[in-house]
């Protein structure tokens, strides 16, 4: 790898060709990609170098806009013709850049294959799955016989763990769940035994339990084919257990490269350190604030003069602003390179929390008060929401019921945060909507701030309740009307309460300060803010009417890791300062553990386990909770490699053939290991929510053995 900083690109390329290890299956040198935009030419990728050895896994980590996906598309030759690409991409020594689309087709899918992020849209809905696998085979093996191709397709489906592969060959994509479709995508990608497999955020769109399954499949696929894998992700946990090497990208440039251990245990670039500190951990009850990286990545339409991270870096000095630092080797560890002039100072003991001045964990006035002595702000009693499942064109027959929410009871006290967790489809969002709808005709009772939905027949009571509870949405972009200025957005709830104009103005200025935005930004439109700032506006809108309870629907899942930390810290702070209560729905259990006091685990419309967050996470009793927790990847390579993982079989059962007894029996790892006599109990009786101390769970055999087939350890 070249350390000759002063060379021109042409010289660097020539040298790179000479020095590139001969056995590298893919070697990328000085890759640059430029796009045109309304603001001028954007330099999206600025000099990426790496060598990929056969059978190894390279993880490319970075936030959105860091150029990681563009890099992979450039390697595959999938960028639009309008893009300007320069540098060198060599597959086994053969130059790929500059090849025509037709010539690239020979390599795509046979030598280099790709798994895309969204499994729902990457399969053609009108062809069977078998057809699409066979198509991939036909393109590169025209002489292969039909029988051979079918046999190979069945073999591939079996390899990626699809049950009864022979019958499933004739299934259409819509008959598969998201996780299954992603397996099919992997099957197609490895159909021709590629030497390089590029996986672009392969699990981002999937649930954690399914993510664990798919990562497992990727692992087997790599073992079976011996391919080298490029794993692109924003999730530091996902690559910790899989990758051999890591490349951290920022503003289109690799800022730190090295082995997994180097990056996770001995990061030398402040950005990598911040990223690692910004991720909450699911495995420890560390109630420290997260490391917020303030600011936003630089605008790549402008030339970069200094270190691209300097404006956000707490350690930046004048020297950082003159000339962009090239990656230099870290003394003492071979192959570990960081693009920072202070690399030497940032050795082992440097603490991200101290460097980034993470705020202290805020203390709420309710922290000292026992839970039972606090007032209830929200109470649900046996709330149910069933949707009829209809069939028939003219006369609709009822063929079943979807029990989206099936008898939910819980309460939230002042100053506490309750999180509802579970896979998608378990009814968490429906629960939130039921609470927000607040209608007398609902099944079950919702009491908000002492007002029950059963008596809320007039608009006055409803208005009073709306003042008590507000909502923050998942997607900060979708939650703000693009045609409203921030002022109008924040004024809407206040004007609705009939507040006079002067008071509205005053309150809006107060709100802007409260969520950490500049007061003079009120005249801007939402599209002029970054994602994190938009979410702050969303939070400000929710707080406008001074509610007691804020409902948070996946408040940070649409945000980048570094921005996410800032918003989580803000939520923490607001709860302490204003004495708010939160009801949060989230799929990211690490965030849940960090922010909440209590947690409720939902499965198929029912709460299966609930209790204090630390108790439930440290000592999960229900097998579903255990599986869920074991599926979360932890950003710690050593731990990740030795950890036992429960891989659940299959997906959520269809509501049509919902199990009679315990809902979870079909996928339960404990159930699978039980003797037949005991299994009978699970299949016929519905386990009630029994309490043990503070913790409540719905399982007959909480201490049961886990079936060995479902337990995986990577040693």
């Amino acid at each position, binding site marked *: 790898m070249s350390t000759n900083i002063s060379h021109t690109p042409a010289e660097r390329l020539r040298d790179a060709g000479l020095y590139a290890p001969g056995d590298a299956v893919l070697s990328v040198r000085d890759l640059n990609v430029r796009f045109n935009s309304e603001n001028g030419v954007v330099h999206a990728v600025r000099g990426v170098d790496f060598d990929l050895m056969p059978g190894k896994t390279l993880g490319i980590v970075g936030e959105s806009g860091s150029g990681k996906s563009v890099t992979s598309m450039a390697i595959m030759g999938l960028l639009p013709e309008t893009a300007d690409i320069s540098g060198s991409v060599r597959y086994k020594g053969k130059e790929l850049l500059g090849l025509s689309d037709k010539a690239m087709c020979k390599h795509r899918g046979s030598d280099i294959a790709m798994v895309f992020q969204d499994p729902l849209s990457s399969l053609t809905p009108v062809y069977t799955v078998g057809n699409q696998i066979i198509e991939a085979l036909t393109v590169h093996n025209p002489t292969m016989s039909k029988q051979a191709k079918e046999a190979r397709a069945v073999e591939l489906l079996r390899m990626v763990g699809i049950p009864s592969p022979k019958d499933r060959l004739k299934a259409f994509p819509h008959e598969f769940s998201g996780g299954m479709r992603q397996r099919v995508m992997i099957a197609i990608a490895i159909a021709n035994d590629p030497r390089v497999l590029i996986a672009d955020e392969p699990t981002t769109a999937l649930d954690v339990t399914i993510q664990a399954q798919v990562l497992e499949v990727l692992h087997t696929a790599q073992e079976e084919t011996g391919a080298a894998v490029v794993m692109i992700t924003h999730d530091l946990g996902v690559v910790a257990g899989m990758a051999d090497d890591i490349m951290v990208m920022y503003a289109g440039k690799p800022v730190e490269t090295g082995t997994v251990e180097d990056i996770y245990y001995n990061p030398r670039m402040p950005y990598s350190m911040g990223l690692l500190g910004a991720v909450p951990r699911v495995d420890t009850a560390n109630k420290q604030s997260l490391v917020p990286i303030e600011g*936003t990545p630089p605008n790549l339409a402008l030339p970069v003069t200094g270190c691209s991270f300097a404006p956000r870096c707490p350690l930046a000095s004048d020297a950082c602003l003159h000339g962009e630092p090239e990656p230099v080797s870290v003394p003492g560890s071979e192959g570990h390179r960081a693009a920072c002039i202070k690399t030497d100072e940032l050795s082992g003991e440097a603490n991200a929390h101290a460097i980034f001045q993470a705020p202290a964990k805020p203390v709420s006035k309710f922290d000292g008060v026992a839970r039972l002595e606090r007032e209830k702000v929200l109470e649900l009693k046996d709330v149910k929401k069933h949707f009829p499942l209809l069939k028939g064109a003219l006369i609709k027959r009822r063929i079943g019921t979807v029990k989206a929410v099936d008898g939910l009871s819980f309460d939230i006290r002042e100053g506490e945060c309750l999180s509802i967790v579970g896979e998608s489809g378990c009814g968490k969002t429906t629960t939130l909507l039921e609470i927000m709808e607040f209608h007398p005709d609902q099944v079950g009772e919702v009491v908000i701030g002492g007002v029950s939905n059963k008596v809320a027949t007039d608009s006055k009571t409803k208005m009073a309740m709306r003042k008590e509870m507000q909502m923050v949405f998942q997607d900060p972009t979708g939650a703000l009307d693009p045609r409203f200025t921030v002022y109008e957005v924040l004024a809407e709830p206040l004007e609705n309460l009939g507040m006079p104009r002067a008071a509205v103005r005053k309150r809006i200025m107060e709100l802007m300060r409260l969520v950490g935005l500049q007061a003079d930004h009120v005249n801007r439109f939402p599209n002029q803010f970054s994602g994190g700032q938009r979410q702050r506006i969303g939070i400000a809108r929710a707080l406008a009417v001074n509610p007691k309870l804020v409902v948070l629907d996946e408040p940070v899942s649409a945000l980048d890791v570094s921005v996410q930390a800032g918003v989580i810290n803000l939520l923490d702070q607001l709860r302490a300062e204003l004495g708010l209560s939160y009801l949060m729905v989230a799929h990211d259990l690490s965030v849940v553990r960090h922010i909440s006091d209590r947690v409720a685990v939902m499965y198929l419309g029912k709460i299966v386990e609930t209790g204090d967050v630390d108790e439930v996470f440290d000592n999960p009793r229900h097998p579903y909770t255990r599986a869920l927790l074991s599926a979360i990847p932890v950003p710690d390579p050593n731990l990740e490699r030795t950890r036992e993982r429960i891989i659940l079989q299959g997906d959520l059962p269809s509501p049509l053939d919902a199990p009679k007894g315990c809902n979870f029996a079909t996928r339960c790892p404990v159930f699978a290991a039980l003797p037949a006599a005991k299994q009978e109990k699970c299949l016929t009786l519905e386990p009630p929510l029994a309490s043990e101390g503070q913790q409540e769970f719905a399982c007959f055999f909480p201490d049961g053995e886990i079936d060995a087939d479902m337990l995986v350890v990577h040693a």
Partner: protein
Amino acid sequence: MTNIIDPIAEIDESRAADQDVVIGKSRIIFRRFMRNRTAVAGLFIFLALFLFSLFGGFLTPWDKDTIDPLNIGMGPSPDHFLGTSQAGIDLMALIVEGTRISIFIGLIVGGVSVLISAVYGCTMAFFGGKVDAVMLFILEALIMMPAILVVAVATSGGGGLKNLPSWLLLIIVLLFFSWMGTARLVRSLSMSLMQRDYVKAAKYMGVPSRKIVWRHLVPNIGSLLVLDFTRGITGAVLAEVAFSFIGIGIKLPDVSLGVLIGQATGQVSSFPWMFWVPLTVMFLLTGSLAMMNDGLRDAFDPSSSSIGRAKTKTAKKTIK
């Protein structure tokens, strides 16, 4: 309440937003439109025709009611730039008048029908359920109605509408039949907008329904409405020409492009200018609108390729 974010961070964030990354949406749309050469040409042709229809009368001393007994059925000459009709009326004067009526009909029908469909479609989508079902039934029923028969009956004096001028009658009838397609489009678009979080947020804040429709739904389907406005003009102009051509649209003494073309078809070989001139004007009118529409779609559609290339630009730089 204290400021909980340290001031340095605030400055940083504002700096990031202050760089000229922020471009107003209207400016982006304008720029994208201007990148499409054809569309700009279309816009100019349309504007020229519009001005011609307003002030073209000053180009000729004749008007559409004056007969020139010395030049009956004559070809273009210094006295009459475009020649005269077989009744001795200056064709230039007729064309100016006809173009004005055609554009007038187009603008009114295009504009008003877009308004009707926006309100109708949004209402359907917002209330849903029974309201939606009934309104959709009415809409489908109107689509089924044979427009040409209604036009024929109405313009030939049926239904006691004799006193109205024929162009006004035609506008009313065209309006009656032109809004259904767009209304259905608006309905489906609004339905997807209803699912947006900001509409939900307004609902959960207790904002009244009509306020939500007016403040959140109507402005957000604006780009569709602009596109449909230009398309509606084209449609109305073509419909007017077609109806007048077969003699059931504009009636004499009112003139329109359709009437002129219709009258001249019988004598194309003896009075070719009477046929080709109005036909050319009509093509220019509808053609320019179609060209504009293409550019507008490019401008409003974020996925269109009107962003320009990076390759050519950098190539130039390296040559230099």
